[in-house]
């Protein structure tokens, strides 16, 4: 279990979290679902050590898939991966798995949006971390590409079984991908439930879960 206890964060007079607590089961995908401004990204950034906060968070080695791929522009695809992994064979294997072996020498500027995102996924799994943080990683993609990326993500995750904390405001994404769904509002978890079935779920089988989640979000 990864335990977060007494986490507090304020931006000036605006308190986003006060004594927030959360337990994450290892090897599972937990999804934080909430409206814009509910503090989802703030929590991820605090766990990753990118922002200052009050309270104690466990010291974790993190991989992070940001909203944008955030590749280093002056390094090639291989350069971006070799920055965080010195094992060339592992890099080759990962490039193969994400289908970018032939584009290893390209710079990010010469990649399509989907290819850049695949590099971001490859980087996140290549880095040996305790937790993988994902901040609306597929939000800017069209539907077809979004599901292709989710399939690719699960293809790698199944062999890796890394602990994942994903934030999103997309109900379908959460229902399809998460073992456990947490609904966040004003820095508090207002609902915590575990839908049935193994991930990734087929959305056509999840109408009741989807309906329930939408109702909880609307309320």
């Amino acid at each position, binding site marked *: 279990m990864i335990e977060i206890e007494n986490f507090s964060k304020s931006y000036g007079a605006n308190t986003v979290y006060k004594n927030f607590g959360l337990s994450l089961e290892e090897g599972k995908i937990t999804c934080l679902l909430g409206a814009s401004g509910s503090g989802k990204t703030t929590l991820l950034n605090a766990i*990753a*050590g*990118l922002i200052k906060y009050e309270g104690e968070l466990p010291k974790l*080695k*993190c*991989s*992070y898939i*940001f909203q*944008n791929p*955030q*590749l*280093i*522009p*002056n*390094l*090639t695809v*291989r*350069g971006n991966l*070799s*920055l*965080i992994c010195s094992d060339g064979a592992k890099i080759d294997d990962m490039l193969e798995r994400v289908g970018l072996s032939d584009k*290893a*020498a*390209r*710079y990010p*500027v*010469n990649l399509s949006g989907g290819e850049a995102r695949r590099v971001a996924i490859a*980087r996140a799994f290549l*880095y040996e971390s305790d937790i993988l943080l994902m901040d609306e990683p597929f939000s800017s993609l069209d539907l077809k590409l979004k599901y292709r990326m989710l399939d690719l993500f699960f293809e790698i995750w199944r062999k890796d079984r890394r602990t994942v904390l994903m934030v999103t405001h997309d109900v379908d994404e959460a229902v399809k991908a998460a073992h456990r769904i947490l609904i966040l509002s004003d820095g508090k978890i207002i609902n915590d439930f575990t839908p049935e079935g193994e991930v990734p779920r087929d959305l056509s089988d999840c109408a009741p879960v989807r309906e329930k989640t939408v109702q909880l979000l609307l309320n």
Partner: protein
Amino acid sequence: MKRFFTQRKLNILISALAVAVMWAVWIIAYYAVGNDYIIPSFRDTFLSVFEECLFKSGFWISFLNTLLRTLCAFAVSFAIASLLAVPGALFPGFNAFVKPFTVFLRTLPTLAVILLLLIWTNPRVAPVVVTVLVLFPVIHARIYAAVSGIDDGVRHTLKVYGVKKSVAVFRIYLPMISPSLLSQTGADISLGLKVMISAEVLASTYKSLGGMMQEARLFLEMPRLAALTLLAVLIGLVIDVAFTSLARLTDKWARKDGVND
């Protein structure tokens, strides 16, 4: 029908027109003043340029001395500025320590410094120190702005993935800012040349462009003084254009499909 005047050709024509305007102002001023000791004629100046370049070996030695001193001052300024600006942009506390020094150097009166340095050092060293003092805050501000301007996403990625600061600086930050720095290098060296010559004039540095100008002034050789000024401007222009072209070339090189690994 293909247009004869492309924008590039038009720009060259407009620049040529600007040079013609400067030339016309000179000629008008020459005839208006009517005194060769105040404004020399274009013809005498032009002949003097050729005389200096072709028949006086002293000119080339002086030119090389001044140019080497300028390049030396630029290299020292760039090295110190890089060493202080890059960590300054990454660690706010370090920048708070460096900032008073850069503000002080920016406002320091150059002439007063030259006079003091002439007492403390010699006419060959003083212009180099002055040029460093003038160039350092300019280059420091540019490197600081370039590193600070690096996307937060890049910084966050490097932090999350535990990339060492030294690797981040030498493999990521410096290559990322180098095209913008290179494009300004010509302008910095031109500025350095200008300051160097001014300092050499004041210091009467032996075998230097500034020293030659001071000599021409003392002997009232106005065409020679104008010729040396014109040559200094041309040298600065050549350096500026050369570095701008180099920056354009590296920019093109960086944009194309690369194989850096």
